[in-house]
């Protein structure tokens, strides 16, 4: 089977999310990549070095600069004439593009796979991770999005893929990029961080969240996350949200601070290796999944912990 993996990038470097998709694709067969971007030569070069990669198709055109789905999907669909499976990360970019590719190919997409069980059989979460379905595709071609935390990341070195320029239909002329507000941060990215410190509604307000959570995260070199309640209350921006409707994470260590543990939050972090919960409510559901729990007032415990580390 020949697979085509959509490389996620910012025209300068390959995003980590792609590496897990390469691993998933390698379980199906030969791995080819698609780099659609503008002035993205560095991305293509880096992509060719990813372990296990065969061919790297590069479409370098202003129309692909911002990854607009209207422009990228027809390009990917055309390349699928020579491939059997299209895979993208289950990120906002992958989720935006992949279903469009599937519709162009008249194929039913398999969303957020957790494992590859056979050439056409996969597991995927449904009902916010409260159930796991095993599904088999009957379509001639596969279109798949991959949950990054469910697969190991492929090595960024060791591959020797060949780079090949391709061109597509270009600008569909129906959409244009206006602007983006992407937070610049020295912190590790949530989905690839080894340690995450997350805060919940108990943090009271934006100032208290910052004053309590940030020093601990700084001490640990950790990424900062939040529950949906904390995001909805405006303590932190929406891209901090961990949960079924936010980001799915699986770090080595996850600190849940002042988080009760709603089902929707647990769905986003329950695959973390070690979960540490600090909450003053001893009946909070978070303690049912926590490896280490501390029932106490977080406003004294967190500064004390930060000081002790």
């Amino acid at each position, binding site marked *: 089977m020949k697979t085509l993996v959509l490389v996620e990038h910012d025209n300068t470097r390959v995003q980590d999310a792609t590496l897990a998709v390469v691993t998933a694709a390698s379980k199906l067969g030969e791995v080819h990549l698609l780099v659609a971007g503008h002035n993205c030569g560095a991305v293509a070069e880096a992509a060719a070095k990813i372990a296990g990669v065969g061919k790297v198709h590069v479409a370098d055109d202003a129309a692909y600069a911002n990854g607009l789905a209207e422009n990228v999907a027809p390009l990917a669909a055309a390349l699928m004439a020579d491939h059997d499976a299209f895979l993208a990360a289950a990120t906002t970019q992958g989720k935006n593009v992949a*279903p469009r590719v*599937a519709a162009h190919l008249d194929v039913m997409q398999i969303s957020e796979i957790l494992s590859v069980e056979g050439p056409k059989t996969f597991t995927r979460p449904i009902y916010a991770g409260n159930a*796991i379905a095993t599904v088999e595709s009957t379509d001639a071609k596969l279109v798949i999005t991959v949950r990054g935390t469910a697969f190991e990341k492929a090595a960024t070195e060791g591959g020797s893929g060949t780079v090949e320029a391709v061109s597509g239909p270009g600008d569909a002329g129906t959409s244009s990029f206006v*602007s983006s507000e992407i937070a610049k941060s020295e912190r590790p990215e949530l989905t690839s961080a080894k340690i995450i410190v997350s805060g919940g509604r108990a943090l009271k307000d934006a100032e208290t969240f910052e004053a309590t959570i940030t020093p601990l995260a700084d001490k640990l070199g950790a990424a900062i996350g939040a529950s949906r309640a904390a995001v909805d209350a405006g303590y932190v921006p*929406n891209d901090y949200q961990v949960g079924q409707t936010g980001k799915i994470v699986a770090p080595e260590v996850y600190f849940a601070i002042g988080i009760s543990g709603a089902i929707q939050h647990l769905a986003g972090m329950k695959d973390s290796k070690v979960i540490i919960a600090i909450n003053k409510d001893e009946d909070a559901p978070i303690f049912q999944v926590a*490896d280490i*729990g501390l029932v106490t007032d977080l406003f004294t415990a967190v500064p004390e912990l930060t000081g002790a580390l």
Partner: protein
Amino acid sequence: MKILVPVKRVIDYNVKPRVKADGTGVDLANVKMSMNPFDEIAVEEAIRLKEKGAATEIVAVSVGPAKAQETLRTALAMGADRAILVETEEEVEPLAVAKILKAIADEEQPGLVILGKQSISDDSNQTGQMLAALMGRPQGTFANTVAVEGDSVVVKREVDGGLQTVKLALPAIVTTDLRLNEPRYASLPNIMKAKQKPLATKTAGDYGVDLTPRLKTLKVQEPAVRQAGVKVADVAELVGKLKTLGIAD
């Protein structure tokens, strides 16, 4: 401008889904069902655009069982003008739903189709994008803010790492994210009035769409259960544990 708002009847978001003992799916018998929360946000956004004068008529559509009429009546009570139920007792995949919606859009010629980014049942997150591809129109997925400006719509999208703003030529497809708005509750007089609003019932055959599933569900299981660990008495003991794990030194 007309707005088409597809809505889905799903298990209520406050209910914990239970996997059937025979592993064939999730038990929906005698379970409270409601409108998919993301679709409520879509209905609300359409109503707000109508209230601002950007839209003239809101048509709610559902593909589902006869009981999805209740979901459509909710949309009508919130403020939609009329409804179409494409009735089927089968579970319909996003691709087939998108094909039905495409056929309805061909008839209705909406300027905007606003729908939830995903249903909280099968969590596919596909229908809006597929519909956009089938219609050959642009999409503003995971919308945080929607503004109609002349013959285009500007959508601020929630993306990994922050927000992205795109400008789309109408007609366009918008899928809603959580923070787009807070849906209103329907008032009692509006619930009564909604009973008089037109609701047409159709079948997939009326639109020439084949509902045969492309994916076979082989089994549905409970996820692996995580065991609760230990409780520590104080911060000192927690630090000790962190040291054994190699997190603190």
